[in-house]
């Protein structure tokens, strides 16, 4: 394992020091491992708290700031944060209008956020609502799985819902748009290589040079199936088709994200986006906004994911609203 770390045990604590020092939009509570806005939002506005395992940066800490999150709870690498962290963050950011928890659908994240919401309501009287993202079409949503994973739509949701909260909408309205964004978003990911979790010291899975994993999540877990490595054009089809099979994306403006898994150069991400855009155009999907880059990563995994959100004019307006975070910044 070759990594820019001091020791596997101190990766998170050391990275939080760097985030504190390097991102003027945030301040870090190093004891509770919560990243807060440097300038809290005004009283009477709904606050957004998200969080999850570390290793997906810029998600979630890099999306704390004006127009997006109020706080992000950082767990160990690929491990959900704990209820006490979330409870503390919830109490600190509440401006009297309630707090929305944005949770990616993983067993651990959901259980910890549930415990945190119970604690925050019981002990601090904070009104808490939650949205659980589950946009990954690689996972069959059935009684026989933990349900679809929350992946790329989480980025788009934090932006759009962040703008809605910034406008001053109440908690019910903020939760409603959050659920609407999640319901209209679909993602599919693939990996060229595994990633190496610092505490494990070696790649999570072996992947021969001539093969790839289709349908991976964001934790270096193996995907749905392993196939021969194809061209960018072929890979794009294997990502776009399952998304369009799952939800008709025509007849509405789409927001599309071509996301890197952390170990793939931006040049290849642009190349992949070109292929994806061509496929979407051919399928009659009208792309209104795009993001191409590393936004929800899986440590040093090489690969990418595609997220398509079937948006509407309201979502586009909220998407275009000003945002100032380390991960997304425009209009301000």
């Amino acid at each position, binding site marked *: 394992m070759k990594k820019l770390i001091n020791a596997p045990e101190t990766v998170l604590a050391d990275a939080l020091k760097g985030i504190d020092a390097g991102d003027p939009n945030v301040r870090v509570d190093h004891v509770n491992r919560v990243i807060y806005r440097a300038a809290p939002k005004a009283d009477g506005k709904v606050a957004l708290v998200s969080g999850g*395992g570390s290793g997906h940066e810029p998600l979630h800490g890099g999306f704390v700031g004006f127009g997006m999150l109020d706080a992000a709870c950082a767990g*160990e690498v*690929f491990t959900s944060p704990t209820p006490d962290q979330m409870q503390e963050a919830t109490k600190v950011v509440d401006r009297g209008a309630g707090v929305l928890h944005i949770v990616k659908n993983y067993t651990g994240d959901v259980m910890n956020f549930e415990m945190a919401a119970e604690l925050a309501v019981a002990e601090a009287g904070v009104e808490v609502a939650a949205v659980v993202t589950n946009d990954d079409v690689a996972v069959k949503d059935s009684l*026989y*799985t933990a349900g679809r994973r929350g992946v790329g739509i989480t980025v788009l949701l934090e932006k759009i819902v962040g703008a809605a909260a910034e406008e001053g909408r109440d908690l019910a309205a903020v939760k409603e748009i959050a659920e609407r964004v999640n319901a209209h978003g679909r993602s599919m990911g693939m990996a060229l290589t595994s990633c190496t979790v610092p505490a494990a010291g070696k790649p*999570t899975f072996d992947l021969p040079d001539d093969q790839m994993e289709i349908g991976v999540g964001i934790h270096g*877990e193996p995907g749905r199936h392993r196939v021969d490595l194809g061209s960018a054009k072929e890979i794009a089809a294997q990502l776009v088709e399952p998304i369009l099979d799952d939800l008709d994306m025509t007849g509405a403006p789409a927001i599309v994200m071509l996301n890197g898994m952390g170990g793939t150069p931006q040049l290849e991400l642009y190349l992949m986006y070109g292929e994806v855009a061509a496929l979407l155009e051919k399928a009659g999907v009208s792309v209104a906004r795009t993001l191409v880059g590393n936004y929800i990563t899986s440590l040093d995994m090489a690969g990418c994911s595609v997220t398509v959100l079937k948006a509407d004019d309201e979502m586009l307006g909220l998407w275009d609203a000003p945002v100032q975070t380390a991960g997304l910044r425009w209009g301000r």
Partner: protein
Amino acid sequence: MTVTEGTITIDDAVAWLGSFARQVTEQRDYLTELDSAIGDADHGANMARGMTAVMGKLEEATPSTLDELFKSVGMTLVTSVGGASGPLYGTFFLRIGTSIGAVTTCDGADLATCLRAGLGGLVDRGKAELGDKTMFDAMAPALDAFDAALAAGCTLQECTAAARDAAAVGRDATFDLVARKGRASYLGERSQGHLDPGAASTAMLFEALAGTIA
């Protein structure tokens, strides 16, 4: 630590937890390896971190009653582990603490009752059923075996040995199962042919219990 006349003292409980802490720490790479195959490669590190925190807290000050002891263990796991195993193991011990009451010793029947309450907490939190390929698959048979041994008039030592053996059988049975809960369920049939990491650490919990009541 030996138990006299089939009762469990605070020292016994601490010895049980200490033995469990040693096992998950010594076997952390093994647990992580199991988790790498069908999960996200963190179960060993998480359990080792959690149980190290538990033992550190108990060394600072050992609670004077069993309920305080187990509640403290549960809260420490909930706040130090994260992932799914934090809330699951945490809720398990919290419910044991709530069930056992402010006592300083308990007998086999008390232990069976509070372990059953712990299992109830696990189910409330994780909604797992037998055969889902989770820690439930090791724990439920272990408690059934404990109860059966108790009903047959066995000693506490025999009860914990029966629980240990049943937990190991339950753990091994997860090998052929297709996961229906947790992160391994994303793999569908590819989760077959691997032991469930949570069932493996649960088997260690009962091995530690049987080893303590020797």
